[in-house]
């Protein structure tokens, strides 16, 4: 062993100059904003940092909606060398907080008045044990229905506002020779459609009981069976090319008039915008059928890891402050299709869908109906989410499984995952 150790030590010395941890007044940021539009928008933040004299070390890892990035983050944490900031969201922030790895942003939060600035539901997610440990980047709405108006016109249908209308419109669209509902057969997309259908058919109170509170009676009850049956019916509106299809390819089907509808979060807007289309004219957006009084949110955030170096700490605090800077909030959310995490900004640059999104967000926050998205990791911890995904996607793809059996499996999924 000694021979080898010496060799590795020698190599380590050789590599020391290249070792990565952020130096002095720099932050190393782990994220998965890798598409051209996102990268340009995120560069605004980097420029803001650099204009104040801080360095930005970019550590991007794409794949699986952040799954790969999370693997890397765990590996970095295990080696005792986490990045200064990482894109972490939802309940996972709490898990990292429990491990004692996150730093404290209360100083910035106090100075900037985050308590007043941020909506309560957003601020809650950013806090662990009463302390701010993360900063929100945006608010996505998941329960959207996107449509191609030309297809709707050709089929002679309107934007559906209930599930029944959706199925009727779907029939008409199919008869007119189009794919009614564009979809990609990946577990998270199945779950996205499932939660929107459940919300539309059973309402936000049931959504909260079943998918957030994991109430076994709700999970295994009649309403769940109804929701599952509605969900399975949407499959009849889809085409056979869906397995493994990426969501943005499904969006392209709507853009090109191959398909009529898509149930997808507002990041789909990035695709419509990139194709040069205008909201309300070239494509339509509306709350998923039956969910106009609800809002399933998906919030991206940057969590800050505990650092010891004073200068790095200072850079980290600056980063937290600048994320909520209006210029970045506006640039980033225009590119992502989401709405800013702070509701006090001028929304005139944003399109009609985003303006509606903000209005609905504020309305549902007051009147109820604002719920976290299960499919996007905002409602339950990763293990429960994974177990529910398994049930949902397996039920959806198995022609023979009755909804009753799937509902039973839902109950055991919520139980089995917790240890």
């Amino acid at each position, binding site marked *: 062993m000694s021979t080898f150790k010496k060799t590795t030590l020698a190599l380590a010395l050789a*590599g020391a100059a290249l070792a990565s941890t952020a130096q002095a007044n720099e932050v190393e940021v782990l994220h998965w904003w890798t598409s051209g539009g996102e990268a340009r928008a*995120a560069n605004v933040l980097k420029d803001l940092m650099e204009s104040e004299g801080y360095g930005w*070390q970019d550590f*991007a890892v*794409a794949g699986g909606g952040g799954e790969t990035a999370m*693997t890397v983050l765990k590996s970095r944490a295990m*080696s005792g060398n986490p990045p200064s900031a990482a894109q972490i969201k939802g309940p996972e922030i709490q898990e990292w907080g429990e491990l004692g790895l996150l730093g404290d942003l209360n100083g910035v939060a106090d100075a900037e008045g985050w308590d007043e600035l941020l909506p309560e539901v957003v601020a809650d997610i950013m806090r662990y044990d009463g302390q701010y440990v993360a900063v929100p980047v945006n608010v996505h709405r998941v329960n959207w229905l996107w449509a191609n108006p030309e297809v709707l016109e050709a089929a002679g249908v309107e934007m559906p506002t209930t599930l029944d209308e959706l199925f009727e419109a779907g029939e008409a669209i199919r008869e007119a020779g189009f794919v009614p509902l564009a979809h990609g057969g990946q577990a998270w997309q199945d779950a996205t459609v499932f939660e929107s259908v459940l919300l539309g058919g059973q309402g936000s109170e049931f959504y909260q009981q079943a998918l957030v509170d994991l109430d076994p009676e709700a999970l295994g009850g009649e309403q769940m069976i109804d929701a599952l049956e509605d969900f399975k019916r949407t499959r009849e509106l889809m085409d056979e090319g869906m397995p493994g299809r990426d969501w943005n390819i499904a969006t392209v089907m709507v853009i090109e008039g191959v398909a009529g509808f898509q149930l997808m979060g507002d990041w789909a807007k990035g695709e419509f915008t990139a194709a040069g289309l205008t909201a309300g004219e070239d494509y339509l957006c509306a709350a998923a059928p039956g969910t106009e009084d609800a809002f399933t949110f998906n919030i991206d955030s940057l969590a800050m890891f505990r650092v010891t170096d004073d200068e790095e700490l200072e850079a980290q605090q600056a980063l937290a402050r600048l994320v909520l800077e209006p210029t970045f909030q506006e640039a980033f959310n225009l590119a992502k299709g989401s709405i800013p995490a702070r509701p006090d900004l001028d929304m005139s640059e944003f399109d009609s869908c985003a303006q509606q999104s903000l209005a609905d967000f504020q309305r549902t926050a007051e009147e109820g109906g604002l719920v976290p998205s299960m499919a996007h990791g905002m409602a339950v911890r990763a293990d429960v989410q994974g177990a529910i995904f398994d049930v949902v996607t397996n039920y959806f793809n198995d022609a023979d499984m009755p909804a009753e059996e799937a509902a039973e499996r839902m109950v055991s999924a919520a139980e089995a995952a917790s240890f």
Partner: protein
Amino acid sequence: MANVIRRQTPAARLFRGLLYGVLILAALFYILPLVVMLMTSVKPLSEISAGSLLSLPQNPTLTPWTKAWGEACTGMRCEGVGGYFWNSFAIVIPAVLISTTIGALNGYALTKWRFKGSELVFALMLFGCFIPFQVVLLPMAQTLGWLGISSSRAGLILVHVVFGIAFTTLFFRNFYVGIPNELVSAAKLDGAGFFRIFWRILLPVSAPIIVVSVIWQFTQIWNDFLFGVAFSAHNTQPVTVALNNLVNTSTGVREYNVDMAAAMIAALPTLVVYVLAGKYFVRGLTAGSVKG
């Protein structure tokens, strides 16, 4: 061995026709994905969404290639995959050299200096080939942290050496088993030492198996993604990570032509190695590494 079929008879001619038919069909199957990649990489984006996979490019363009090399976004930097190439080489070259050297010495010690339990040692090491890398990710991360080389090139090189020596040892051991022991025994009697025998007798005949070992290791390490992404930092990411960032981006318009060009670029070194050294590869396998 080769059996020459007499060419004159009609039956033999038919046989050879069939033979070529089967071989060419098989070749088409193997080459198909590469052809699709290559053709897609030189089509403008509009042609890709309009035409079928195998339609020939109407207006071939090299823009996707230049974009993939120097402009595509792999994070906030939009400088293409070109720069990551050198990161990969900086990891692959030392890792291949070190693991091959260790493998050669191991194979030599295991075959020409057998001792009680040497077979057991070999079997023990062989099992290392079968560990799925996902399993060792976390303990490896912790170990690299202990050694103080997490997120550095040295750490990545260590990881690849550690999980490469099982294979290189296997290759060299199987090759050296086939080298007559008499030469070594005679040299031992003449008083030549361990390293002298290796240097003078074994190494000069090892070229074929060194080629096999180098090709194998080069391919494995170059193509590695999991270790590369988990144990690198922002400035040491290998090209596979950049490729993944380009290809697996979940938002924004997918530029398939750029994706394909980037994939081809990332694959180029291993492809070149296989095409140029493939002959020696088969020759090296012939020379003995296949002897179980």
